[in-house]
């Protein structure tokens, strides 16, 4: 069965520091992979997605993610974090059907120190 693991429940970084959020997935075929961000009290917003092709994917708000098939990972990165990046981040994998169903990780809460 498909699954997504975000090993870090909570991460704190200083403003201006680099960021990497980890995501590991379990899926038999080539996955569709997504990163979403959720600000407090809001819905989820798509940051970026990977379907095929270049394994380094650029997203909105200066984020990027790299698909590594050998490691079953899709880690999210940002070179310099801003205070407004404080939010919860979810990794998701497509469940392999035409229904658009996604399997979500448990989420990582990012806190940014001034």
């Amino acid at each position: 069965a498909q699954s997504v693991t975000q090993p870090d429940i909570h991460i704190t970084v200083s403003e201006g520091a680099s960021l990497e959020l980890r995501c590991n997935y379990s899926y038999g075929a080539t996955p569709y992979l997504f990163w979403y961000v959720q600000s407090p009290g809001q819905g989820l917003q798509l940051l970026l997605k990977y379907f095929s092709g270049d394994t380094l994917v650029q997203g909105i708000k200066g984020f990027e993610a790299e698909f590594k098939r050998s490691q079953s990972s899709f880690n999210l990165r940002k070179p310099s974090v801003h205070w407004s990046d404080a939010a919860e981040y979810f990794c998701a994998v497509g469940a392999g059907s035409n229904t658009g169903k996604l399997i979500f990780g448990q989420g990582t809460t990012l806190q940014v120190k001034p």
Partner: protein
Amino acid sequence: DVKVTQSSRYLVKRTGEKVFLECVQDMDHENMFWYRQDPGLGLRLIYFSYDVKMKEKGDIPEGYSVSREKKERFSLILESASTNQTSMYLCASSPQRNEQFFGPGTRLTVL
């Protein structure tokens, strides 16, 4: 831009009431989803629909039902609300095999 709207941002109901949460999308998406989100548990899928009048149970369907009479509207129904259904409810829609677009959420409190 895709827009997914939910009928209420905040809702307070009493135990035993029948509760309707409405979700509307404006992009002609085939698929629609209802999730609940609780601290430490992430997003859990309640029900989804892949076509008008078609629905499938998600991971936690107990105590909920859904209705999709029109393609743009997907309703979540709590037949008899209980305090353990106090949660944030998120609706989403998607075209086939693509990302989901989320509404702003409804924070439901059952007293």
